[in-house]
């Protein structure tokens, strides 16, 4: 029997770059949403939750970052946070570490700017070739691998707000298939003018009040025995990751409660052992259905609810990854304790639900 654990994590959130700002922000229950500078961002939102003072040049240096877009910079920086934990092992055997990184549709700003240049330039091919890779959706994962010399499987995943959970499950799958010794997995999302406009138009009226956020979270997933041998604390065992589909508006509550029960079964966790729940909390009516589903599936539990979205806005593709980070941030330096478990859930308006169960001890 083998078990995979999270033994390091790295977060960039609207509270700041690094794990400490997220811990502090959550502990204080502080709101990271602020008024947008409308001179810089001509968008339909009044407010947003940006990562304060984040630029590629500031965190990665000027060399190699001239054409790097924001989501790539967030990803490369966040991956750097977990690279530190395994620097020697990574340098010695770069092909044994996989990277699974989730994004929305890459950078819609990079993609649409490139097309705009083609449509408005003197010639339709007057575009900057160095920016072409930014328009391909594996850019953030690929550039993270190049930057940190990670030569194992390099997979980009996408699935709306469930992206972080999909990345985690894909990491388990790659490891189980024998394709790597360890996996860095997570997700990143950027705030840009273009994303703001697309989100605005894509949302129903009642959802337009939720400000956009951004950030990234990356996790080191490895066998418990490898973590122990290297002296890294197993912060949580990945008990289970499950998904389910639903049809129509009445479906998400039922689908998610079944999904959570299945995940608890797989993880061997009793409902009352769930000490914290980090729901997505998105999409108006869907948020209420999500909380009801969790309550349905956890009779006898009295979990602490970590409602990240209320503080950092809608982080879209990074949302469920940041929820996982929030669970670990709340659990403290030693991670989840013996007998403790945590639940992360998400409901995607496109017809899927998903959850992960993390287990302590």
């Amino acid at each position, binding site marked *: 029997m083998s078990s995979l654990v999270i033994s390091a994590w790295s977060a960039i959130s609207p509270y700041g770059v690094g794990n400490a700002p997220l811990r502090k922000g959550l502990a204080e229950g502080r709101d990271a949403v602020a008024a947008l500078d409308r001179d810089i961002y001509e968008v339909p939102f009044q407010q947003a939750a940006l990562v304060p003072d984040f630029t590629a040049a500031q965190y990665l240096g000027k060399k190699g970052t001239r054409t790097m877009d924001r989501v790539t910079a967030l990803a490369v920086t966040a991956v750097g946070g977990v690279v530190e934990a395994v620097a020697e092992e990574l340098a010695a055997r770069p092909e044994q570490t996989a*990277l699974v990184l989730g994004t929305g549709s890459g950078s819609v700003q990079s993609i649409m700017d490139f097309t705009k240049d083609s449509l*408005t330039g003197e010639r339709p091919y007057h575009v900057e070739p160095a920016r072409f890779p930014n328009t391909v959706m594996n850019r953030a994962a690929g*550039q993270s691998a190049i930057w940190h010399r990670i030569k194992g499987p*390099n997979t980009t995943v996408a699935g709306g707000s469930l992206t972080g959970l999909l990345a985690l499950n894909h990491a388990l799958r790659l490891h189980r298939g*024998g394709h790597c010794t360890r996996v860095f997995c997570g997700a990143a999302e950027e705030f840009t003018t273009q994303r703001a*406009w697309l989100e605005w138009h894509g949302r129903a009226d009642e959802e337009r009040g939720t400000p956009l956020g951004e950030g990234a979270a990356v996790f080191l997933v490895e066998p418990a025995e490898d973590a122990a041998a290297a002296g890294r604390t197993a912060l949580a065992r990945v008990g289970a990751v499950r998904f389910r589909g639903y049809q129509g508006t009445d479906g998400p509550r039922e689908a998610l409660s079944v999904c959570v029960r299945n995940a608890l079964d797989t993880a061997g966790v009793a409902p009352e052992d769930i000490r914290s729940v980090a729901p997505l909390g998105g999409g108006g009516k869907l948020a209420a259905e999500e909380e009801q589903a969790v309550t349905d599936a956890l009779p006898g539990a009295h979990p602490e609810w970590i409602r990240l979205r209320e503080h950092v806005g809608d982080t879209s593709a990074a949302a469920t990854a940041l929820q996982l980070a929030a669970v670990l941030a709340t659990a403290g330096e030693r991670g989840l304790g013996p007998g403790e478990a945590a639940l992360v859930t998400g409901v995607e308006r496109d017809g899927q639900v998903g959850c992960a169960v993390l287990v302590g001890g």
Partner: protein
Amino acid sequence: MVYDEEQRPRRVVITGLGAVTSIGLGAPAFLDGLKSGRSEVKPITAFDTTGFAHANACEVTDFVPTEWIHHVDPQELGRATQFSVAAANMAVADAGLSARDLRERRVLVSIGTTDAESRDLDTLTGIQLEEGPERLSPGLARRAQAGRLSSGIVRELGLVDVEALTIPTACAAGNYAIGSGFDAIRHGEVETALCGGADAVCRKTFTGFYRLGTIAPEVCQPFDIDRKGILTGEGAGVLLLESLDSALARGARIYAEVLGYGLNCDAHHPVSPDRNSLARCMEIAHRNAGVAQEDIDFISAHGTGTRANDVTEAGAIRQVFDAPPPTVSIKSMLGHSMGAASALAAAACALAITENFIPPTLNHRETDPECALDCVPNEARPAVLNVVQNNALAFAGNNAVVILGRVDRVSGPERAEPVKEAA
């Protein structure tokens, strides 16, 4: 995650194929095109090509969404998602299954892509320039999301116990998706996987490759001394995977077995491939599949038809193989269908095994001595095939190699687990 080590790894087979291609819709038409060596190169219709000196592509011209999509409103789907949903429906029917059957199974839907709905993002960019961002279409904004490529299939089939995974690992994404389906079935995570890739021709990607000087003016000529680059293409390939036991139990037709696959990353350059790293990826694939280089009967190459790709790939092949087997590129027929490319190539490999032929490399006059491969020029070749290899490369050095085999080739005990890199 606790693994059930009591459970034997399952053998994984392909029992359904769906293909939306410029040379035919559906597996039978695709097979006919591969055997007869068809190509449909035409001037691009997807966008206004004024100002480009040349603008040929391999577009899918006879696709009527309502003929292939039955439950979801095609208007809610971008063109790439329409392709993926249509190909999934084809694969399910081709496997002799129904949506109802799949609703009772645990399923992984895994679809690779390069651009997802960048075609819609192009359209939105145009609207924004003409009318301002306030006038963007809500319908387009909603459907222009990468996750739709797999979730559209879930909605169309009404799947219940399902994971919808989109893998935007660019031009190798189809092989990545097939690999995920293989692992999920092999280890008993799901019973059925619908996996493959989809993309639609778009201005953004054509322009990027054009600017890099890699678009061929007329035709795609992989491994030819006069090759001038890629032609952009589009379509979708979806494979239905299940365990051998499941296929045998329901008496399904089996195209081929997925023997294994290998992934790695050059971690070197954003767009240029690395020969040594690609060679290592092939070796990883062979080891994971439990085959030796001399077992490979033909290679379906990434074979884009650019100077750089073909020399690098041929070099890597010669590095791994004592005597390289026939090595073909179906991009000479389909153009480069991006995220769909390796999925359609895998489907072609499965059909080749079933129908005993090697697809040709079209438009071939004289092999580049720097490539020096038998590329099966211009005409399909009859051949009994046991094991075939499907290469895929992507920007950022994302390599993926899938190995397929004739299912009755192996008898006796289950093959060994893939071995990790020696620690």
